[in-house]
């Protein structure tokens, strides 16, 4: 249930009154997440989670402390601030982090037209997931394969308030489906995301997964080596995401950890590529403000191959004499202990080009068409060297035609090097990625990707 701005604001105000003269910041998130998963055409997991998180941060010059709780009532919010203020006494040195001030664009009226919010989601989420699962199962089974998949819905509202009079509030919604079709040795996959239920055409997505699966049966072995590749959007998203996350972090650039360190204004990847992050673009799942309540600005990270923009939060911007771009990660407080990056591009876009996938295939003498990349991990962060596997349908292209499926391959390559090899950018993009934001990319054709291992399937 969406509680509305006033309700959350009342809770936050009550908390801020406990700040005892310190600078303070309160985050409230009221969320509802539902997920329906099916395996072999049977729903085996069906869940509905809800709750309210509060994170209270209290600052005193160079000291800071933070308390997080799941807080159903206002008293809990106040208690979190009191505990944070008490703990501050023990707090050690931390870089100055100026609190951001108010910005009207970050506080929406929940009764108005809200970017990234579809009121149908809170009303219909549970029923919709069941219907979509049913439809996907029947479409995939009709075409032959065994159906697997998941259907997720989320609606939430976030409010951030601080002692510098900032009030940022917005509700948002997101829906995501992904289907996997399996038939003996064949695998197919598809994915759709959007902030509204209407954005998802489940039948078409299910048919795509089933079709891919039927084409990928009985794959032939194919040797490791360096080949041209056509990456469907699911696979292309992985390259764009890693390059933006590891490369465009202003702090990493300053510390010499990024391939963009010292290269502002230079060409770093193919001039066919323009990569940007835009929290307002409704072709993604909009996020109006970041984890510090600051409006997300559009940042052109790479413009026609040129390194052109970096991402900052309040702290890293202050350290570099920049202004926050609104990229402090929006994360739920009960995250992992792994420690996070200081910024996160959560609404990435790779600008569309003019090549249909069919043209990429036609222009390939010998190469591979890849549906998805699996378990991709950083081998070396500075050059964005990544290893991973192909998955869910890998196909051999010869003399301008798909000739058949091949067994999955392991690749190990620098994504920066790979993105310097781009020959075609797809004409139709797809919103990929689950959960917060998403990444919208078209297919890509690269002249080379390095494959370093093979499998038996």
């Amino acid at each position, binding site marked *: 249930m969406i509680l509305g701005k006033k309700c959350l604001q009342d809770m936050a105000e009550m908390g801020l009154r406990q700040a005892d003269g310190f600078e303070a910041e309160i985050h409230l998130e009221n969320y509802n997440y539902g997920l329906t998963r099916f395996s072999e055409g049977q729903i085996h997991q069906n869940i509905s989670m809800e709750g309210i998180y509060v994170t209270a941060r209290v600052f005193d010059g160079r000291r800071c402390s933070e308390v997080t709780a799941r807080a159903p009532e206002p008293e809990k919010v106040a208690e979190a601030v009191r505990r944070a203020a008490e703990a501050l006494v023990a707090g050690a*040195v931390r870089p100055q982090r100026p609190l951001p001030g108010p910005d009207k664009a970050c506080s929406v009226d929940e009764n108005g037209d809200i970017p990234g919010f579809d009121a149908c989601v809170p009303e219909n989420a549970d029923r919709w997931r069941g219907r979509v699962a049913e439809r996907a199962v029947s479409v995939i089974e009709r075409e032959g394969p065994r159906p697997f998949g998941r259907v997720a819905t989320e609606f939430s509202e976030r409010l951030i308030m601080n002692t510098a009079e900032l009030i940022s509030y917005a509700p948002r919604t997101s829906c995501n489906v992904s289907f996997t079709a399996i038939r003996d040795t064949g695998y197919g996959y598809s994915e759709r995301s959007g902030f509204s239920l209407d954005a998802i055409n489940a039948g078409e997505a299910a048919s795509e997964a089933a079709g891919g699966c039927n084409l990928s049966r009985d794959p032939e072995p194919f040797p490791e080596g360096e080949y041209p590749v056509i990456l469907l959007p699911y696979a292309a998203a992985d390259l764009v995401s890693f390059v933006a996350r590891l490369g465009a972090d202003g702090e990493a650039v300053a510390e010499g950890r990024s391939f963009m360190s010292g290269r502002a204004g230079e060409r770093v990847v193919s001039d066919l590529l323009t990569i940007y992050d835009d929290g307002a673009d409704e072709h993604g799942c909009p996020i109006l403000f970041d984890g510090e309540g600051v409006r997300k600005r559009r940042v052109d990270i790479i413009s026609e191959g040129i390194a052109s923009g970096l991402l900052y939060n309040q702290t890293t911007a202050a350290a570099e004499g920049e202004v926050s771009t609104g990229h402090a990660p929006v994360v739920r407080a009960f995250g992992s202990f792994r420690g996070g990056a200081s910024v996160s591009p959560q609404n990435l876009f790779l600008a569309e080009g003019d090549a249909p996938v069919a043209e990429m295939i036609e222009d390939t003498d010998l190469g591979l068409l890849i549906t998805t990349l699996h378990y991709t991990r950083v081998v070396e962060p500075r050059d964005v060297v990544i290893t991973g596997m192909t998955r869910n349908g890998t196909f051999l292209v010869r003399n301008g035609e798909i000739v058949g499926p091949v067994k999955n391959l392991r690749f*190990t390559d620098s994504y920066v090097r790979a993105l310097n090899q781009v020959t075609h950018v797809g004409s139709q993009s797809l919103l990929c990625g689950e959960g917060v934001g998403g990444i919208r990319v078209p297919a890509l054709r690269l002249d080379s990707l390095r494959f370093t*291992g093979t499998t038996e399937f």
Partner: protein
Amino acid sequence: MRDVAQRVVSMADGMGASYVDSRVVQREREFISVKNEEVEVANSQDDMGVGVRVLVDGAWGFASTNRLDGRSLEKCARRAVEVARGGATVRKYPVQLAPEPEYQDEWIRSVEIDPFAVDMAKKLELLTECSKEMLREGVGVARASLVFERDTQVFANSSGSLIRQVFTESGGSLYALAVNGEQTQVRTYPCTIWHDIQGEGWETIEARDLLGNAPRVASEAVQLLSARPCPEMTTDVIIAPNELALQIHESVGHAVEADRILGHEADFAGTSFIDPDMLGELRYGSEVVNLFADPTLPGSRISYKYDDEGVKAGRVDLVRDGVLVGLTTSRESAHELGLDRSGGCMRANNFDHIPLVRMPNVSLEPGDVSYEDLIASTKKGILLDQNRSWSIDDRRLNFQFGSEAGWLIEDGQITEMVRDPIYADITPQFWSKCDAIADEDDWRIVGYACGKGAPSQDGRVAHGCSHARFTGLKVGGKKS
């Protein structure tokens, strides 16, 4: 807490569920991290709520909430029943559970020094000192972290079980990143990014002597910048426990999970190369390889007496003398596989997630050679320490692991340090190359975390092992 757990079970029971279980969890957590002598995070957390899982018409439903008043509990129970009814429309067969007796019991993991009772100022001082020690010429990031967590959990089900368990855990680690404009190199201690969390109190932090190790960690990171790349070769590889633990995790732990084998993760993480028919038949490794799961190992962060389905835990053999003999299971998967009983491997991360098949202390039994003799008996080889990158395919066969550092071995002596070592292989072929495992004196439990399921749950895991040697393994330097 007992009251809430039982109330929500009887509510869902009254709404037509054929089986109900609930978990009420209260969680305290502290995460402190200091980077370059400045506090990055000083976060304390406080959380409580209930999750209720139901079977209605043979289909699962789950709902959770952090509102614990009577009305909210009833709404939560109703949501669980409703989503189960919604799911029952897409169902081929009713879910059935392997039988399990009911228990009324309590189990509290004991620790020597309560980590939450240790002063925040003392913790911050330790981390700041460690960071200062590591921050030297060539080091760009010097990070020291501490984490503590305590879960107090009550499980109740409609068969009458009522179980209270308390889990306390502590971890802490060092991370030094060296940069020279061309490359970055990392050294960590005692474990890459998971802080080597143990089911112990502050005593485990004292025992690991973070401050004493800080200068070594930093200087090794800087040395790696000028080390030569690991040569391409086929050689004997000795893998240190902190790296081998992740190898066990990825190429054994996930592969033997019954839910993956039955396809429940096929839409996401993937399946497994293992088929239930392979039990007793598949040669997983050489004869010296014995692997087991044991949730009752003392000192581990994942250890418990009952799992999150109320199943009493015990040891399960997975690989005996190199042959696959067991799997990690739940009540549902045990029934599907025709087993008498669940292996008791179900754990959930917090109250708001469903339990999943987890790997409770999946471990490699120690061998009979001392660590010193293992090195001394290696004519030519390499010692790999600390994982830096890992990747494995969706059936858990083709993997590639990178380590922070390697040390060449010549005639039984550790010689030169090399950078960016990588090794890759296929799971059963890899374990078949294992020819010697160091003995009990070298054996330790490495605390890890594992992302599994959707929505992803950052679950507790740990793996026991000692140094082990693999003959004729292909290694090389970073490829880019």
